[in-house]
């Protein structure tokens, strides 16, 4: 079920919230928790009920193993616990590997080794990347003795809680499970409903009004590049910038909707975005983009690999390996692998650069240059991320570098057209760029991502997430939400605009990962 669907907005969400609070008031706390779990399973099964068994098996397996590891925490025989952990991690990764990477592996084996292995197409179960990572983190922490003896139904809800189930944030047991038993009674707080509605409405608007509309510029251009069309300079930049904004507003819109929906139940999710395009370096970018994935990769891949403890060369190698895996996590394809490695290289370069040229936060020119350079590097990365093929990505990157020529339609040049032609500028039609409409849209989005506060900052007085790391930018517009009449109008208009854009339903980009 999609957050941006009629069934979710008009039926599923209101019914789930109402029944949750009724059970919380008139029945026991556990009844409300069980209801939320059942509703989450329904939400998951709506997509394809066949895969319900998969998530159930995964939950039971990991819960039992986690319990076992918890019991073994004080056992002197650490060897057994380690074996159990390894088995658990391998089982989880095997499940993910089979559903997500088997076809990719077989295709490449056949292509490069000349074999003829046949494998029926495997449908990727939705959310598998997310619930697998969450549970691997749980097992590792159980092994480290950092878990508690959690109630089974609480654990089930931790994994399946519908706002975060499909596309994150990747929640951690330490921040979720205590919330399920924090109080003995569920009280309906109007503030939770208001804050939840406000965040959800902003997210809906970002997704269906902004992301889906800017996608209309990006999608045809990327499709053309994948089919071998050489995009000219303006077309290539138009496509890559459009996608850069599409992805941000799509994914952060989803995250807002998730945080908003969870808040309606009085549950806070971790922040997943903190204005990533305001980043002044790639290191900074990864602290702001898909923050819960970065946290997972840092705590469960980078640090166990040695982190920065074994010298700078090993540190750089660990960074590359972590980002390679991060790229592969996003999808079984060479473009994702290249994207991951590219960001690994970015991080290595950024680290080396920092040792020679420390960032001066007081120097505004320094900040502007660093922000622009970082942004361009990110845009280049998104081209690899979005293109279906390496050739398609290279075609767009060539266009961005000006290698496919420059086209400026005659109507924009007027009397300068003959001069432009003399210096090699073509004056024919731009097929994959929509002119001033697209330019205006892109400029407006630039202003939003660089100068406007993000949802978390707007909602800062209501502690909208479990994270506290969204320190507001010092020199930017300050907008603070308050449950006033004016805000009620603003939020309801955003919500209506979202509703009126619903009938061209599109899936969230991160569903595929």
């Amino acid at each position, binding site marked *: 079920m999609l957050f941006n669907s*009629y069934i979710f907005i008009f039926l599923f969400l209101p019914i789930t919230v109402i029944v949750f609070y009724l059970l919380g008031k008139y029945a026991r706390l556990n009844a409300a928790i069980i209801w939320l779990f059942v509703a989450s399973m329904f939400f998951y099964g709506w997509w394809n009920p066949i895969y319900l068994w998969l998530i159930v098996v995964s939950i039971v397996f990991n819960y039992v193993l986690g319990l076992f590891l918890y019991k073994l925490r004080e056992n002197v025989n650490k060897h057994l616990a380690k074996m159990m952990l390894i088995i658990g991690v391998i089982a989880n990764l095997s499940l993910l590997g089979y559903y997500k990477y088997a076809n990719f592996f077989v295709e490449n084996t056949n292509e490069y080794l000349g074999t003829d292995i046949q494998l029926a197409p495997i449908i990727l179960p939705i959310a598998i990347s997310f619930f697998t990572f969450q549970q691997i983190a749980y097992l590792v922490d159980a092994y480290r003795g950092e878990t508690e003896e959690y109630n089974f139904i609480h654990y089930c809800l931790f994994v399946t809680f519908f706002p975060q189930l499909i596309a994150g944030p990747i929640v951690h047991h330490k921040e979720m499970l205590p919330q399920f038993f924090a109080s003995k009674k569920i009280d309906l707080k109007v503030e939770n409903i208001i804050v939840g509605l406000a965040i959800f409405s902003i997210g809906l608007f970002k997704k269906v009004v902004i992301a889906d509309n800017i996608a209309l510029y990006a999608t045809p251009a990327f499709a053309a590049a994948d*089919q*071998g069309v050489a995009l000219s300079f303006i077309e290539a930049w138009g496509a890559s910038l459009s996608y850069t904004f599409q992805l941000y507003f799509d994914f952060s819109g989803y995250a807002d909707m998730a945080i908003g929906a969870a808040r309606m139940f009085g549950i806070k999710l971790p922040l997943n975005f903190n204005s990533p395009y305001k980043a002044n370096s790639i290191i900074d970018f990864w602290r702001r983009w898909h923050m819960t994935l970065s946290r997972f990769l840092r705590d469960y891949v980078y640090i166990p690999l040695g982190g920065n403890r074994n010298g700078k060369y090993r540190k750089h190698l660990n960074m590359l390996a972590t980002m390679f895996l991060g790229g592969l996590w996003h999808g079984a394809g060479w473009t994702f692998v290249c994207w991951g490695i590219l960001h690994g290289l970015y991080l290595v370069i950024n680290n080396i650069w920092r040792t020679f040229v420390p960032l001066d936060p007081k120097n505004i020119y320094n900040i502007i240059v660093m922000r622009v350079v970082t942004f361009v590097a990110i845009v280049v990365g998104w081209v690899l991320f979005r293109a279906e093929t390496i050739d398609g990505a290279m075609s767009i990157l060539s266009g961005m570098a000006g290698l496919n020529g420059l086209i400026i339609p005659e109507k924009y040049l007027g009397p300068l057209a003959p001069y432009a032609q003399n210096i090699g500028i073509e004056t024919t039609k731009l097929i994959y760029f929509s002119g001033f409409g697209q330019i205006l849209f892109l400029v407006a989005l630039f202003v939003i991502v660089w100068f406007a506060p993000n949802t978390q900052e707007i909602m800062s007085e209501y502690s909208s997430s479990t994270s506290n790391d969204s320190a507001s930018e010092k020199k930017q517009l300050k907008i603070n939400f308050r449950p006033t009449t004016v805000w009620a109008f603003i939020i*309801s208009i955003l*919500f209506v605009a979202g509703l009126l854009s619903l*009938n061209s339903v599109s899936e969230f980009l991160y569903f595929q990962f």
Partner: protein
Amino acid sequence: MRFLIIFCSVVLTCYLGVGIFNVIVDPYQQYEFVTVKNFNENKPTVSNHVRLYKADMVTRIKPQTIIIGNSRCDTGLSPNYLGWENKPVYNMSLPSATIYEIRRYVEHAHSVRPLKHIVLCLEDIMFASKKYNPGFSEDNLNLNVNGGKNWGAWLHRLSYMFSFGGTMDSIKTIRQQDEITAYSELGQRKYDWWLKKTNSWGGVHNLFNKVERSKMKGLLDAFKKDPDFLTRNSDQVGFEHYRSLLKTAYRDNIKLTIVITPSHARLEEIRRTFSPAIKSINAIVKDIIKINEQISSSMSKDAFIIYDFSGYNDFTTEKVPEKLSEDLMNWYWEVAHFKAELGDVILDRIFSKKTDVTSSDFGMKLTSENIQKHFSNKINARLKYQEEFAGDILELKQLVPAYFEEAIKQKYNTQ
């Protein structure tokens, strides 16, 4: 609480207000609660939402016979033809229809009321790699892809009334009342619509040229995207949907008449610029015949009749008026679309009615036995046409970009 009260009030007022306004204006002719002259009588935006409009309309007409194909059939074959045996008849053809869309719309119509007769118009391009066109939505159809009931279809069709797109089209409907609705009640594109289009392009000859150029561009784009788009065989995309459609018709005793529609000979000439690809165009026709015969035999039924009206004959080689002439043609609006007059000749042939205008092989019944001879006849007819209409051939040559011919040559020479 005040916040929630204002929020709910604004949302309900705006959302319902928009919906009620759009239902009243009814830009896609779905509800027809209110029809006011010079306000919403004409529905000019239907042309851009044909897939929604026809999916909805068929649920109200509840036809026993449907005509389905691309815009050629949507223009040329009349549901008002007197010889139809099972009425009501609805022309459910969709512009640029793909075989997948055709299959899904047949399933949709069949779920509304069991069909007795389908006239299926086919063209090789329908079997190309594109699965469906913009505007196609599974959610608008009564059956889902697995054959189960899509309970929310009517709700989804209603949802267009609660959308920005629907609102913009309502405003356009009110403002453009001087433009007529493109379709008749029974789904056929109107004579007046074509007449207006012809006049706006400065006559038939200009309209011919305009469509010829766009067809050339379409072929070139399709070729660029997928150089093999015309060289597919029955194992590849498209034919599985054709198979599924045939099986449904044989299983449910629906009479299916397959029609290969007649474009004007000038379009045949443009298409045959792909001279090496001609083999693959013929291969698609052969597959259409073969699959039909295979399925009929496996289900122990008489094979459905396949009529070929394409090629070079008295109708398709009708002379195109001169550039500045205001004359209309007898049989064609432009190079791709034949008129209802020719559609009636086709239907006469299907229903075996005598007609005073005949052409020896117009509407040849194709079987795997006679197909090769039929192709040979076409080649001869083509040579005769090229001799007789040398001026037209020369004019068409100028439309073909040199690089296009070169691309085709390269593609086929290198293979």
